[in-house]
């Protein structure tokens, strides 16, 4: 190799990009919105559920659009499943707010509007973080949580491998 006084810093040759790739929709589209909180039930059985809408073009998800209703304890279930079965560090959920569930409060406790909004935001952050993780996407529990109407707590945990 001949000695050069000044190094050659010209760019390496690159394949020109296909314009449909450059301007088309990206292959990483994944959006999950949590909205429309609704409090149902009476007394002890009272709880708030949230609508969870998912839109994606990732091939690993069976449905490109899905809409389900979930409550806080469903999120807790998902977190536990992932912590047990996958190697990922699961992000934190918004707080359990046990203090808010004590009696003799001046406000609505866990059904207070501002608290519900705070919780909604935290859950939205949580699920978007998880759903985009390549390892979490392999877990059956995540797919069931996002795209099936009800969560079957007696399901068989496991990985999901596309054939």
């Amino acid at each position, binding site marked *: *190799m001949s*000695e050069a*006084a000044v*190094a*050659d*810093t*010209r*760019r*390496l040759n*690159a*394949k020109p*990009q*296909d314009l449909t*790739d*450059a301007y*088309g929709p*990206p*292959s*990483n589209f*994944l959006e999950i919105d949590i909205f429309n909180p609704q409090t149902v039930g009476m007394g002890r059985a009272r709880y708030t559920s949230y609508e969870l809408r998912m839109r994606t073009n*990732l*091939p*690993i998800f069976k449905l490109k659009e899905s809409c389900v209703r979930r409550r806080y304890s469903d999120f807790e279930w998902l977190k536990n499943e992932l912590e047990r079965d996958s190697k990922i560090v699961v992000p934190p959920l918004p707080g359990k707010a046990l203090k808010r569930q004590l009696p003799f409060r001046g406000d609505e406790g866990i059904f207070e509007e501002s608290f519900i909004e705070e919780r909604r935001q935290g859950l939205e952050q949580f699920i*978007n*973080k998880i759903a*985009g*993780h*390549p390892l979490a*996407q392999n877990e059956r529990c995540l797919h069931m949580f996002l795209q099936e109407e009800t969560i079957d707590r007696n399901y068989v945990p496991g990985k999901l491998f*596309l054939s």
Partner: protein
Amino acid sequence: MSEHWEIMTFDAESRRRVEHKTEEGKKEKYFLFYDGETVSGRVILTLKHPNKRLEHQGIKVEFIGQIELYYDRGNHHEFVSLVKDLARPGEFTQSQTFDFEFTHVEKPYESYTGQNVKLRYFLRATVSRRLNDVVKEMDIVVHTLSTYPELNSSIKMEVGIEDCLHIEFEYNKSKYHLKDVIVGKIYFLLVRIKIKHMEIDIIKRETTGTGPNVYHENDTIAKYEIMDGAPVRGESIPIRLFLAGYELTPTMRDINKKFSVRYYLNLVLIDEEERRYFKQQEVVLWRKGDIVRKSMSHQAAIASQRFEGTSSHTEAKTPSQTAENNSRQ
């Protein structure tokens, strides 16, 4: 003390000095030597009170190259050890100098001061005395030079996470000199994650110890962002990283079976949730000898003469070349 001892090398006026970091992290200048060079100089004794007698049990000077592991300071591993006796036991009544020469000294390794190990070369003058010896040391720095490697293939690889992220990365060489430029590119084949930015890091790994007691110390020397934003399939991101701006040493492999210093390029992609995806690749660094540069004015004079074609400047031609030129006219 009533006297003052000093070591100095000859050619101190002309010899280049280079910066080298001390163990504490301070930058100091030392004389630069290469393998095979002679190390010569003198030990100088200056008596503060002339005519006062100074007894001694002998004077010697040593040239030493040694490796020091910080966790095992008691054991110095000397790989070069030369000694010259300068004076037999006696006494001094006046200031004196003692010349020495270590001819064509082998200096097989480059001076290195690291996190857990140090390799140094130094002259040590010892004046033996009944109670305590006087010891004076003078450190020098040694650089090991290489020439352009005959074989220097590029590094090109396809890596990724199944169905998630596939990239092809390419670096133009596998061996770079310390003032070189890394020219490369990253080509995206599949992007199903939301990438926020991409950077290339230079990592230095210092390995000390052997067998079950191997210890790796990783240090990120540089972080250089090469892409900000979300790439899509078919995108090519160029890399141009100038090494001269960073504190690098040549790659040192298994020096005297005591330590190694190796360098890695770490390509890091970070997604919107701060998840990191990376691929590490070793590169070999080597030290190129400096070209002796003529002064700018001398070069300019040559250039202008060639352009004007003055007859006063004639390039040396072989007889066949001259004949060819004459026949063309």
